[in-house]
């Protein structure tokens, strides 16, 4: 058991190392600067969404609508290019992502419903909107040269997209570990009732968490659309599982209250290098799906196996409680708190 706990703590390093060794052995010419650059660029899309999801998961919530927001923002940025120019269109599109996140956050906080179920519904809504706007057809942008400029590789390794991802995740690391708002996110995730009692505005943190996640999903979608010069309503539909898998590989718990930005970085790199390795070997897309699904399930099981048993009643955060009426709903329940009981 101790070994499991230890393995679970340093699992990002172990899993990433194993992935790299296995890929290097199986794929000829895998370990090179160009692979690294390609892998980073591929990982950046998952990574930007994963940044937002890391914060949300730590605060005990989840957002399944990221892939749909990703598509929607990309479409908005491409469609508006003709009307208002490329940069303003990109900004409006990112703001559309922010708005989508704000809708998620307001509904979760306002209606006090489980974020899994709610973002499942908003995922359907945002995805339908994307199909609605585009008539289910892909749309293309005005400037092809821009995508070439964005795909340019600097210092042999970084594209603009992957550099932005690395910078943001380092910033997130400092924000989560060195600032008071960052610490409050952990407090809300590990025990919403206690956090509220200690004067932390749980609802506001949860709301802002959704806004943050929506903004980043929108940002990732805009970058993707600019790089491919295309917006499509089907973009990002297979991202949901990959993003959750990346964050969970990085040691962030679905139960809330635990997680780290650097872990997510490791998880994203793992998923990225796996994807690249499988693409080099021309493994079909559906087999890649099986792999990311397996990684997700196995790690979540590992997490359950090492979760310390017997947490105080009513302190289990949002996602593991059977009772999905979540944030701030526990303190006043008093004697009824056991209704939600153990999962």
């Amino acid at each position: 058991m101790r070994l499991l706990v230890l393995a679970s703590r340093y699992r990002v390093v172990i899993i990433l190392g194993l992935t790299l060794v296995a890929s290097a052995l199986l794929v000829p010419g895998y370990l090179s600067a160009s692979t690294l650059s390609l892998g980073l660029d591929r990982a950046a899309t998952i990574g930007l969404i994963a940044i937002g999801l890391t914060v949300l998961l730590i605060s005990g919530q989840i957002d399944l609508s990221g892939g749909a927001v990703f598509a929607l923002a990309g479409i908005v940025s491409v469609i508006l290019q003709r009307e208002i120019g490329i940069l303003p269109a990109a900004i409006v599109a990112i703001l559309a992502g922010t708005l989508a996140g704000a809708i998620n956050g307001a509904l979760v906080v306002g209606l006090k419903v489980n974020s899994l179920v709610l973002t499942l519904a908003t995922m359907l809504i945002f995805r339908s909107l994307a199909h609605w706007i585009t008539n289910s057809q892909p749309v293309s942008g005005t400037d092809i040269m821009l995508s070439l400029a964005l795909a340019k590789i600097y210092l042999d390794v970084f594209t603009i997209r992957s550099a932005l991802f690395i910078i943001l995740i380092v910033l997130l690391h400092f924000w989560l570990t060195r600032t008071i708002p960052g610490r409050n996110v952990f407090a809300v995730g590990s025990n919403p009732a206690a956090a509220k009692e200690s004067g932390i505005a749980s609802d506001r943190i949860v709301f802002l968490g959704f806004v943050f996640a929506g903004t980043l999903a929108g940002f990732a979608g805009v970058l993707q659309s600019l790089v491919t010069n295309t917006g499509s309503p089907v973009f990002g539909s297979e991202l949901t599982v990959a993003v959750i898998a990346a964050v969970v590989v990085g040691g962030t718990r679905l139960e809330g209250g635990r997680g780290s930005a650097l872990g997510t970085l490791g998880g994203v790199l793992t998923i990225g290098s796996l994807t690249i390795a499988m693409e080099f070997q021309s493994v079909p897309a559906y087999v890649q799906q099986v792999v990311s699904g397996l990684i997700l399930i196995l790690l979540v099981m590992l997490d359950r196996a090492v979760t310390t048993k017997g947490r105080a009643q009513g302190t289990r955060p949002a996602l593991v409680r059977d009772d999905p009426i979540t944030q701030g709903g526990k303190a006043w329940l008093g004697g009824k708190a056991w209704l939600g009981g153990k999962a």
Partner: protein
Amino acid sequence: MTDAAVEIVTPDRFTRGSKLVDALSKAGLAFAILAVMLYGSLVSPAFFTSGNLLNVLTSMSIVGIVVVGMTFVLVVGGLADLSVPATIACGAILSLGLQPMIGPLPAFVLAVGLAGLIGLLNGVLVGYVGINPIIATLGIGTIGLGIVQAAVGGVIVYGSNPASAEFAKGRLFGIPVVVLIFLVIALIGHFVLSRSFWGRWTLATGGNYSAAEASAVPVQAVKAGAFVITALASGISGGLLGLTLQSARPLIGAGYEFSAITAVVVGGVSIIGGFGSVPRAIAGLIFVQLLTNVMVLDGVRTPIQGFVLGILIVGAVGMDAALRKRGVA
């Protein structure tokens, strides 16, 4: 003892004993269904034709079989089963793909059985390991769909047995066979949920997990069972879908999970668990299907229909949470 407590306390907690709320929650859906029918017959002359209604009934039956299973998942407090597209694809692809090798009936049975196996995996992860149902079914669904696709090489499978197609598309006493199968499954589901020990266990587990566990209800098995039931139901639904269409592509079941979840929550089955019945879910299904049909006849495009479904889920879940809060506070 537990049984009696559940039967009396549950509606009480939900409506706070108010007769008005109780009546509204029961009659509300009936009114909504009538309103949709009225609107449909006003805007489209095609609505009240036997051809159209029969079409609605047939497509409703395919979703309806899944809805019966999904009701168990929601009532037991399992949130939702997102592996439905995988189990439907499993049922459809295998029941067509295996026909040349082992004949239509064994192919169908094997396909449903394998779908049930996916459900068993879900059930073990959710019930025994204690993983969040949505994450577990999302992961297992992705894996299952990938394996089914890999098994047939990611292509479309076509049927090779005209007799089985005739049967699935055929009618008995003027009623389509698919509708009859749905009615039988719905009756069995209703009987199990409302009249059997398994149903009482399901309601008890969803209503109060700890209390049910303390009363010696095998809560883990009951929770796992709900996912097996849903997977078997979707397997049957997928098999029938494949036989009717005589072709199955890997994404044949995409969207069915949302249709089923929408029907169940619109029917007033609590997403938190512990409350709900098959007839309620089917009333929700009738409402959603009629609404979709009226939108189609009205020329509303598919994306907007998805949009409306999403808003219906948000509205129903929000209302459920509001009612719950009143009941508990």
